[in-house]
């Protein structure tokens, strides 16, 4: 799954990738006419809307691609760099840059592009840009406060607006197409010889409709992860997709036996995990099951991966996700930690074993075990649990004292302009 960089591409190779991408970026900017300040400034005076056309088309194309690849599960959007939101700085910086655009006629990327073909005003603009960064650097003590105020993290616009990703994408595409039509009308009035003169009306109309159709499809494309997480939250899905189960007794036996072929995956919140966890358990919340860093642990074919949560429901979801991702030998702990604590650790005498959640219908105590066997079995179980209670308590205490929880190393993609 993409992106490739944190895990598959080395830092040096990444710089070569940067150079190649830059060449494509620069070539396209120049071909579009972004090396010309007169053309760029035209967007504000109505004689040339090239900036708006190129910019909006590029943004909408990349956004649609991100959503489609995310839906297909090819792009891990959790690893994608989302520009963090600092509300005051975003507005203040944007306003200053708006002045810079009108007065200077370029933005940094386009000025570099203009410089490359010999535009003297572009070279001076780049020089000004360097001075601007230097001024900021020297005055940083004054600017630091507002730059870092209102830190809201990697906020997504559709969450801020309380709508779905797909719906926002469609709205943005519709806005873009609307803006293309309106600006073409304006441009033809302001300058009948402007760039819009060249457009073939039929082709452009067709392209506009195609783009709107893609946008309409996006409305129904949730992110791959969200899709999985929603699917496994559905009771019906859970009932039709059974997962192998392990009883508290079996798990306790294997743990006490120090069976190396069993891994306990605890899917509860970190705080619950910290207060009580089974020996050797690893804390992986359901949506983290997707992450690459756990693939080694979850990918051990011959190890039983026992998913546990408080009451088994969450564990079932995580186990299904794991199985869907291709991990084998996935189990859920019957009754979850709660029952494990009651039956094994506290050894509360209980009359009968409740079946696992989705076995209830098939379970018939009358036919399950003959009465005398059942009695013998109950006695065996009781004996085992009395021993197991002591052993487990000791093991949990021991594990807590060691408490060398594996440090999670999450490689994050660096970004920013």
């Amino acid at each position, binding site marked *: 799954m993409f992106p490739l960089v944190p895990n598959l591409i080395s830092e040096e190779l990444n710089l070569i990738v940067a150079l190649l991408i830059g060449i494509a970026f620069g070539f396209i900017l120049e071909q579009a006419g972004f090396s010309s300040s007169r053309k760029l400034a035209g967007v504000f005076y109505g004689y040339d809307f090239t900036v708006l056309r190129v910019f909006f088309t590029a943004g909408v194309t990349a956004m649609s691609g991100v959503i489609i690849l995310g839906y297909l599960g090819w792009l891990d959007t959790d690893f994608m760099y989302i520009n963090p939101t600092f509300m005051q700085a975003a507005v203040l910086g944007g306003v200053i840059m708006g002045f810079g655009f009108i007065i200077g006629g370029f933005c940094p990327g386009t000025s570099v592009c203009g410089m490359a073909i010999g535009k003297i005003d572009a070279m001076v603009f780049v020089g000004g*840009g360097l001075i601007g960064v230097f001024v900021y650097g020297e005055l940083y003590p004054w600017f630091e406060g507002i730059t870092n105020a209102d830190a809201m993290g990697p906020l997504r616009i559709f969450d801020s607006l309380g709508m779905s990703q797909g719906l926002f994408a469609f709205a943005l595409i519709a806005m873009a197409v609307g803006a293309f039509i309106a600006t073409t009308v304006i441009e033809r009035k302001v300058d009948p010889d402007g760039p819009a003169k060249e457009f073939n009306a039929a082709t452009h109309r067709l392209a506009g409709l195609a783009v709107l159709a893609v946008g309409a499809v996006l409305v129904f494309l949730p992110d791959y992860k969200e899709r999985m997480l929603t699917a496994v939250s559905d009771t019906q899905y859970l009932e039709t997709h059974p997962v192998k189960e392990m009883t508290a007794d079996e798990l306790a036996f294997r743990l006490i036996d120090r069976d190396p072929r069993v891994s306990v995956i605890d899917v509860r919140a970190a705080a619950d995990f910290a207060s009580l966890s089974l020996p050797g358990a690893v804390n992986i919340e359901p949506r983290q099951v997707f992450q690459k860093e756990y693939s080694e642990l979850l990918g051990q074919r011959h190890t039983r991966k026992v998913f546990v949560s408080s009451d088994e429901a969450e564990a079932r979801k995580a186990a299904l996700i794991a199985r869907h991702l291709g991990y084998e030998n996935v189990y859920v702990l019957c009754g979850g930690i709660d029952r494990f604590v009651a039956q094994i650790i506290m050894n509360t005498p209980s009359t009968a074993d409740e079946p696992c959640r989705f076995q209830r219908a098939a379970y018939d105590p009358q036919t399950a075990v003959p009465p005398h066997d059942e009695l013998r079995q109950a006695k065996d179980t009781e004996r085992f649990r009395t021993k197991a209670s002591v052993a487990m308590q000791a093991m949990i205490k021991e594990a807590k004292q060691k408490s060398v929880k594996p440090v999670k190393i999450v490689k994050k993609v660096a970004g920013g302009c």
Partner: protein
Amino acid sequence: MKTTYMNPYLAGFLLGLTLLATIVITGRGLGASGALKSAVVAAVNTVAPQHAHESKFYAENLRSLHENPLKAWLVFEVLGVVIGGFLSGVVSDRLAFVTEKGPRITSTMRLGFALIGGLLFGLGAQFARGCTSGAALSGMAVLSTGGIITMMAIFGTGYAIAYFFRRLWI
């Protein structure tokens, strides 16, 4: 000198694919002003290393960037932009040392305004953590709230003040 440019929608589509490829391969978007920052940090660090280590802005950037601030992703990307832009200029026969300006101002005035505009853009990009490429365009691709707000602020301000600066361009 030929001045035919590519159809803007086609150029936008290709630019969008480039940006998408960037996100898919590297997990991050395009940028430009970050390279200016690297250059300034590197220059200050060379000319006045002590100042660079005492001043918070440079010190922070020296820490987060590579030991050599020029060995940064955006620096290489912007070098690529220079090469790509030059190649395009060769292909379309647009290489020339010229100053573009509106009809009502002199070249000297234009260069003065270009310097001020560049300065403002460099400054503003530090606040917004990115410019038109890194914050606005890449932010739109990943639907970042901050990026889209910056985009609206740039273009909104541009339209709001365009009238007062019309002498520069028309």
